[in-house]
């Protein structure tokens, strides 16, 4: 573009414009902000007293949580019989909820790790909240297998420890044990990744704090972070390696969860397509939950400049992509059930699922409608950028993904190989539902506390990308943008 003799043509002058501001990509942070303004905007909600809306939401969440605690109390006191599980449906709502929550817990690490490796600048606006959501979702997921054990005080039996009844060990060949390792590792690594990223931002809150207790609390939480160059250097290296480690980890977690099903010989479960299909579904539902939370959070905390329409749109694109992948997986399963000519597999699909008038046929169509058909509206830009549509779609997607797990689990096991053991219609008791609602309470209690006491956006990371996309910076670049390429060329060479 610096071809001699051609430098004064108007076309090349326009190209100099392109050099500094992309015509295609919108800025990642809206408005003209400097570093201090970024701190102000993001830390302000932490310093202000909680709003009435926050209290209402928080108290509803705590009430749900308490209902969940009571439901679990019933289950522990009177046994798993408090749930309507029966002869063939040994796993019902609990495992459905487990897989659903774990799936939701996938978006955070995907955003923070995989998008970091892919150098997606937009992740900085949403990663902190999404990671927090991941951690809370995995916490909720973990409740289900633990309380389903019945004698929960023996939960530590799942760990490989030399027990007192002789050297009997856990079965390392079992996918259920792989799951123990996968989920606990995922939780630990996500927590470390999230918290190490939070340290500098908590230090920002600490250094602004006026109240004594606040200074003390955030001083504790920020581990005495100073912002030393050497520390930043290590911090960057740590984040990158943790991202590299989390990337295969996040894919492995739902793969292992799918192994719980795929390695069995139950019709409808015994398929090799499960791992990628589960991972795509997990990302799908996780992004939907991120949307549900962020559409509200950005409005309530007035963070529209940081979580922009661009973010919402990009995530809607991910939703339509992963929703379609899930759709292809559904159709592939269906095709193989027909093409494979296995009578049991075929029965599980054609009779138990596809037949609308079979006992659970309705749930299959609900799943198809919510997960495959409804996200297709996001092919339209106008709908992708509509907040109300986005919010409702994100809820619908998560309803659909819950039914996906319900379909996989219940329709496969309520009628198995022997018709004499076909179960009666399974419906949950109030305590099963209560347990599920309780995890909602846990999730939202944690999220409300997080949004009140922690910076919901990664402050330091936003500052890091501000120069690239801030309005202020662009104004300063005006001079250069209006220079002819020839002058620019000389200046660049003089600088070197």
């Amino acid at each position, binding site marked *: 573009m610096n071809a001699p003799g051609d430098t004064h043509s108007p076309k090349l002058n326009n190209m100099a414009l392109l050099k500094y501001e992309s015509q295609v990509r919108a800025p990642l942070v809206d408005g003209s902000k400097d570093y201090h303004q970024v701190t102000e905007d993001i830390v302000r909600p932490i310093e202000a007293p909680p709003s009435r809306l926050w209290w209402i939401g928080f108290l509803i969440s705590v009430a749900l949580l308490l209902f969940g605690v009571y439901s679990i109390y019933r289950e522990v006191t009177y046994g798993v019989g408090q749930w309507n599980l029966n002869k063939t449906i040994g796993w019902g709502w609990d495992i459905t909820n487990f897989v659903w929550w774990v799936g939701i817990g996938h978006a955070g690490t995907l955003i923070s790790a995989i998008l970091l490796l892919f150098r997606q600048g937009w992740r900085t606006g949403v990663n902190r909240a999404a990671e927090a959501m991941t951690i809370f979702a995995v916490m909720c997921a973990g409740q289900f297998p633990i309380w389903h054990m019945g004698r929960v005080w023996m939960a530590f039996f799942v760990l*490989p420890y030399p027990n007192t009844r002789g*050297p009997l060990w856990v079965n390392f*060949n079992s996918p259920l044990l*792989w799951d123990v390792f996968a989920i606990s590792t995922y939780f*630990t690594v996500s927590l470390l990744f999230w918290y190490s990223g939070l340290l500098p931002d908590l230090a920002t809150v600490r250094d*602004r704090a006026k109240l004594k207790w606040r200074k003390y609390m955030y001083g504790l939480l920020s581990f005495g972070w100073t912002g030393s160059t050497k520390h930043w*250097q290590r911090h960057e290296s740590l984040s990158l390696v943790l991202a590299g480690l989390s990337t295969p980890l996040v894919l492995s977690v739902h793969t292992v969860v799918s192994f719980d099903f795929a390695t069995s010989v139950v019709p409808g479960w015994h398929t090799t397509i499960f791992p990628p299909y589960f991972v795509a579904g997990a990302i799908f539902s996780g992004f939907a939950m991120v949307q549900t939370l962020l559409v509200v959070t950005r409005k309530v905390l007035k963070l529209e400049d940081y979580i922009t329409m661009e973010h919402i749109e990009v995530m809607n694109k991910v939703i339509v992509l992963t929703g379609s992948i899930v759709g292809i997986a559904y159709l592939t399963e269906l095709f193989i059930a027909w093409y494979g000519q296995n009578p049991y597999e075929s029965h599980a699909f054609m009779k138990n699922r596809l037949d609308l008038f079979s006992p659970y046929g309705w749930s299959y169509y609900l799943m198809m409608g919510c997960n495959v058909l409804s996200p297709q509206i996001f092919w339209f830009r106008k709908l992708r950028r509509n907040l109300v549509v986005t919010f409702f779609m994100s809820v619908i997607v998560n309803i659909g993904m819950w039914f996906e797990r319900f379909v996989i689990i219940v329709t496969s096991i309520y009628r198995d190989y022997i018709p004499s053991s076909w179960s009666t219609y399974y419906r949950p008791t109030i305590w099963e539902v209560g347990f599920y609602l309780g995890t909602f309470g846990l999730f939202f209690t944690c999220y409300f506390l997080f949004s009140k006491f922690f910076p919901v956006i990664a402050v330091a990371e936003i500052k890091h990308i501000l120069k690239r996309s801030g309005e202020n910076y662009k104004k300063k670049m005006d001079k250069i943008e209006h220079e002819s390429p020839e002058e620019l060329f000389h200046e660049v060479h003089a600088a070197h």
Partner: protein
Amino acid sequence: MALKKFVVGCFDEEGALFDAVKKVRKSGHKLHDVYTPFPIHGLDKAMGLRDTSIHTAGFIYGICGTTTALSFITWVFTKDWPLNIGGKPHFALPAWLPIMFEFTVLCAAVGMVITFCYLCQLAPFVRKHHFHPRATDDLFVMVIECTPKSDEGEIKGFLGSLGAKEINVQQAETGWWLGRYDKEQKLYHETETVSA
């Protein structure tokens, strides 16, 4: 721990930092550290800090995790209590891969974070001297240590000439965590190229 004197200069523009760091090192002053609200790529190189080896540590922790998982499961299933699971071999390597992988990641991540906290001396209840409260907000704080040879007033003037907006002198007790960055720094040589 000795009480030391530092001259603190605050910059409000990170662009000025690279030049300032270069000049401070050239002038022979003892650059203690630069505190920034966000990572500035290349500043570590400009300051002459060596690359961090924390990723190598992570690799070693990961390898330790893999070998621990493999050898432990092998011992359990072939020596300690060989279980017959559906007539399958006792040494069932493919079935152990998920746990080996997860344990590798777990060890690498936990080990790295602990190493990071140890190296940077980050923990609750650690008291550190913070040179400027806005170093975590919007200021870039350059700290020069006063040695017996150096002249405080001269350093102040020098920092001012580099573009520092706010300059003051602080006394701080250097903690043991300052460790090796507290040693005599190598002076800037003309032959050394500093890429900013």
